[in-house]
């Protein structure tokens, strides 16, 4: 009777080992196959360009960027000024910087500023292949604009920068 109990225990132990072994093999197979079937669909660069265009359409009216019309509140949240949903603030960063020649004369920045250092990681040597798919979408472009400031229309250059966080 004792022997039978021992045998049963032994069988249970053996089965447990088998289950652990098979589970381990299953995880290895899943891990390896996951690598082969991994894919990334990243359209964030194109979307950042679309947001840049939308923001510019919003702030520039009839070819003139009327800075005087923007209140301090509007400057702090240009997305709200343009009518975007407040959720955009977590996922997007937008900067509009106005240059007079080489000198920066005004800057309006809105959104998630943390994305700036995330972007920096991707432009530095810290970037690795394993984090490639989490790269934020990015657009920057310089445009010639007419700026209305203190009642005077001035020809200036505007650097538009948009960073979009990768979707979790």
């Amino acid at each position, binding site marked *: 009777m004792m022997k039978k109990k021992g045998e049963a225990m032994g069988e249970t132990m053996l089965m447990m080992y*088998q289950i652990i072994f098979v589970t381990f093999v299953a995880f290895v197979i899943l891990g390896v*196959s996951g690598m082969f079937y991994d*894919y990334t669909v990243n*359209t964030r660069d*194109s979307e950042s360009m679309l947001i840049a265009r*939308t923001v510019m359409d919003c702030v520039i009216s009839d070819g003139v960027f009327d800075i005087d019309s923007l209140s301090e509140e509007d400057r702090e949240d240009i997305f709200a000024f*343009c009518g*975007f*949903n407040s959720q955009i603030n977590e*996922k997007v960063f937008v900067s509009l910087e106005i240059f007079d020649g080489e000198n920066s004369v005004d800057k309006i920045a809105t959104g998630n500023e943390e994305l700036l250092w995330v972007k920096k990681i991707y432009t530095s040597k810290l970037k690795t292949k394993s984090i490639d798919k989490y790269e934020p979408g990015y657009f920057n472009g310089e445009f010639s604009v007419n700026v209305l400031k203190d009642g005077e229309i001035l020809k200036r250059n505007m650097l538009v920068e948009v960073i979009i966080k990768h979707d979790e």
Partner: protein
Amino acid sequence: MKNKRGDVDKSILVQIILVVLVFTMFLGVTAKKIDGRGVRQDIIESQIAMAIEAGVPGMSFEISKINVNGIINKVNIEGGKIFISIDGLSSFEGHSYFSRYDVKVIDEKGKFLVVIS
């Protein structure tokens, strides 16, 4: 002797059940990727998100239910995200879109109409 044969059979049965379980798990996890439904779902969600972002009030566009990417079962917009169910594969993550305007989806016969207002 009979007992040993029985033990061997039982062991083989347990192993077969384990292997079937592992295969089921494996196929369950990889099916979405193997048949490309997940990829097609991501692609169509990204395309629709970009179309919404590029849209202006008064614009609308159609998504055919019998689509080149598969059968579109459901198009849903919720919390600034678009969810598209394709070939029976539900979308849980969705794709964020950023628009200044109201967007709604109308389920019509044979198509989904996305209206920007």
